[in-house]
């Protein structure tokens, strides 16, 4: 299967290893991602705070580029991109005054959008039973001894819970189970990581991430898995600051779900961007 692919800015920067591992892992499942040409930033939640109409217009340009490729599904790995593209599509269709304004703006630049694009997160492609069976078949190195803390973050299940439960989702748990890993059960699957608060009001951001890491540790997890570049960045890159602030001693690897899948599929580490981890993966990889 081939899909339109919208990477978003983060997976070209601090989240490079997400893209690297995602493309290579999905290839193993015969899923091909084709990057749409000359996409622009989705605007994230930040752009919307200043001017919502312009934010929708930014998103609409991407939707229009995707629609031109004649494939309806648009895959985006970043939760913020996922939400913004979905919300723009929703508002354009739901509110006539917004829809008209956006479509007119596209027209002024020689573009159009007919509302045919379906925005999806890669997890959504992997949730059905036959795909889980496929994943099981591909596993070369079952993840015995891995205790994974599945962290979904907020925006892939809220406010549009299209493929999973908005409070207690299971899609990621099911994938980890299929890989042979033990999933650590907990009620914080969709509790907020604070997003950009770590960069703006650090004390608040650190506390939110401390809570998540603490829960992972006391429940005996030996790694955390995420589906969003911002969650991954917050939970991994701020661990040393959190340790200083809270006198804790976290050293928990935070891996993208696609990296963990790739490890179980036996892919070489360069293909999964494992060398981009700031927290050492040595002990974790020895377990498996």
């Amino acid at each position: 299967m081939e899909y339109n692919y919208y990477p978003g800015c983060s997976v070209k920067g601090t989240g490079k290893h997400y893209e690297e591992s995602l493309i290579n892992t999905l290839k193993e499942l015969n899923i091909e991602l084709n990057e749409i040409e000359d996409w622009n930033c989705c605007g994230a939640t930040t752009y919307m705070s200043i001017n919502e109409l312009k934010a929708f217009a930014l998103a609409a340009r991407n939707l229009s580029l995707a629609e031109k490729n004649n494939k309806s599904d648009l895959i985006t790995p970043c939760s913020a991109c996922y939400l913004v593209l979905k919300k723009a599509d929703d508002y354009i269709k739901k509110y006539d005054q917004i829809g008209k304004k956006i479509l007119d703006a596209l027209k002024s630049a020689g573009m159009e959008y007919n509302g045919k694009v379906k925005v999806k997160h890669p997890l959504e492609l992997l949730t059905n039973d036959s795909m889980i069976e496929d994943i099981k078949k591909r596993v070369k190195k079952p993840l015995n001894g891995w205790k994974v803390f599945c962290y979904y973050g907020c925006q892939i299940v809220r406010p549009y819970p299209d493929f999973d439960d908005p409070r207690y989702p299971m899609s990621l748990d099911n994938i980890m189970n299929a890989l042979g890993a033990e999933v650590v059960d907990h009620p914080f699957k969709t509790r907020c990581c604070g997003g950009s608060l770590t960069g703006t009001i650090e004390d608040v951001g650190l506390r939110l991430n401390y809570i998540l890491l603490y829960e992972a540790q006391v429940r005996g997890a030996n790694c955390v898995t995420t589906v969003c570049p911002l969650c991954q960045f917050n939970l991994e890159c701020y661990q040393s600051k959190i340790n200083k602030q809270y006198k804790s001693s976290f050293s928990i690897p935070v891996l993208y779900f696609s990296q963990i899948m790739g490890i179980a599929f036996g892919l070489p580490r360069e293909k999964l961007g494992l060398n981009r981890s700031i927290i050492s993966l040595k002990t974790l990889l020895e377990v498996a």
Partner: protein
Amino acid sequence: MEINKRIKYEKELDDSFWRWIVSTPGGENVEQCIQCGMCSGSCPLSIYMDYTPRRLIAMIKAGFKDEVLKSFTIWLCSSCYTCTIQCPMNIKVTDLMYILKQKAIENKKYPKRFPISVLSKEFFNMVSKKGRNTEINLVFKLLLKTNPLKFFGMASLGLKLIKTGRMNFKSDAIKNIKQLKTILNSIEE
């Protein structure tokens, strides 16, 4: 000590405020609020807010326009949408925060030098000009305009990101920036 009047007279309140909100896309159900507090109780950030989301909605309905627009609450919201899912009256509380943020900027009521509103404006300018966001440029601008001393605290993380190849120094931009600008300008008209 400065002595200020703590209570507002009814005629000082603005009763057109909530009507305007209700007529704005995303704000439809605000008048249905039953003050149950599910939003505040589920919000991971309400303990840091000057007014909890429940209280903010009560203030909107009562007409405390200035206080609402000047509040830190609307900027602290991290858009996790927990309140929106929990609300029994289907009020889109998170989207309401966006409506208020935009109004606060429009009326120049946002807290000055407050990092969150500064970040939003810098991000907005960068994406409007280049079509992409380059993380490092954004961080530089944010720190320069809020707290340059924080550079020192960021140095060790910065080095680790460089070492793992996760930092891009080249400023990113899209090719067809003209097309994007045409679209954005058309919205302004």
